[in-house]
Structures are given as C-alpha cells and as structure tokens.
C-alpha cells in the first residue's frame, strides 16, 4: 500500500483523469475533493460495508424471522412507550430542523 503525507491544497493524480485534492484538515476531519470521470463510482467505505450487511440481511431464514416477529409482539408495550416518547419529543421541539416520524 502506498502511504503519502499531503497538506491542505495539495493533490494526487491517480491513473488517467482522477485527481484527489485535500481541501482542509480540521481536527480529525479531512475534507477531500475528488475529480473523476462520471463513470468512475466513488463510494464511502462505510457504504461498501453497508452493501455487505445488506447482502447478509437478504438471507433471513423464515424460522428466525417468525421468532423475531413473535419476540417483537411480546415487547409490544415497551415499543409503544418509545413511540409516545418520540411524539412528545417532536412536540417539545417543534422548531427542529428535521422532523422525524
């Protein structure tokens, strides 16, 4: 693996037509600008990991799913409590930027 140190404003060129520029470094956050042809997919590492979790999620065994649904019904009451709590929270913070429902 190639490891390089770069400062804000410096860039790297990968292959033909991909330029990676470090825009800024603030604390533990590095802001990166990527210039690449449209057909080159750019995904955050977490989204690739999420794809793996999604693939795993598709293989739900029916018996396990039935058991989970039954477990959910047993916990129905606490779940409803959470919903009521969320509603109250929304009323209390009516000015919130995003309303979660």
């Amino acid at each position, binding site marked *: 693996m190639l490891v390089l140190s770069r400062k804000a404003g410096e860039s790297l060129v990968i292959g033909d037509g991909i330029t990676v520029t470090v825009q800024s470094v603030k604390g533990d956050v590095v802001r990166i600008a990527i210039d690449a042809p449209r057909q080159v997919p750019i995904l*955050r590492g*977490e*989204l*690739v*990991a*999420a*794809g*793996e*979790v*999604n*693939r*795993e*999620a*598709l293989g*739900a*065994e029916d*018996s*396990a*799913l039935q*058991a*989970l*649904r039954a*477990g*959910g*019904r047993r916990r*129905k009451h*606490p*779940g*409803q409590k*959470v*919903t009521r*709590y*969320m509603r109250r*929270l929304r009323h209390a913070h009516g000015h919130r*930027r*995003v*309303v*979660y*429902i």
Partner: protein
Amino acid sequence: MKTIQTMYFGEVEIDESSLLHFEEGMAGFADAHTYALLPFDEDEGGLMCLQSDERPELAFIVVNPSMVLSGYEPRLEEADERALEIGADTPVHLLAVVVVKSGMENCTANLKCPVVVNAQTLAAKQVVLPGEYSMRWPLGPQKKGA
C-alpha cells in the same frame, strides 16, 4: 394499482404512488430503484419489509430505528438532505436494515446506514451518518447511548 411478487407475502396489490424511489438504489444494489414498504404486523413500530417491486428476491427486513435505540435522532449530512430535498419542516421516515439470525440476541440493525425517506416526495436513500453508530446494533435488550 399494480400486482407485485413478494418474498414474504406472495402476490400483493400495491398503489404505485406509495412506492419509495431510491435514485441510487440500496447499498450494493444500485440497479433496483423502487421499493414498496410492507408491514408484517399492524403494530406500529413492528417489523416491515422493504420489497423491490421488480425483483421478488430483493426484500429487506427493516424497522423504525427508534424502536431499537430510544432517542435515535441522528443528524444527516447536508449532501443527503439536499439529495432528498429535506428542508426545515420536511417529515422524514427512518428505516434500519435488520440482519435476522436465529435467536433475538444474534439479530442486528444497521443504525449507521439507515434508509432516509422524504415522507412528502417518497424519495429515499440509504445514507452514511456522520455520527458514531453501529452497523450491527444488537436487537436484544435496550442499551444506553449510541
């Protein structure tokens, strides 16, 4: 109305205007752009199925993440808010993808990458949250914090 083949419910009639639109698809499944959200139970807060209307085998078990972790109200990246046209008062649905294994203690929900739905337009996206959330949060007993 439109009849679709589903993974868990057989043939289902759905109202096409209720389909969720994923411009980028789900993570790892970029080719499927429309899904129906089908609840397993009447119970609010129960398990639901995010079912592709074109590919029956593409069916994710999802749950409202605030049922899994109380107080779950994550901040979204601005780019994601822009992509979904989420403004100051836009109602938003969140769905967490569940990995179902035998035994409740082995089931997990992805709280790091929820599906965010603009409830007005039904535009949807599986996002990566900036905060410290687990991709494999256990569904068992509730824990404190994220």
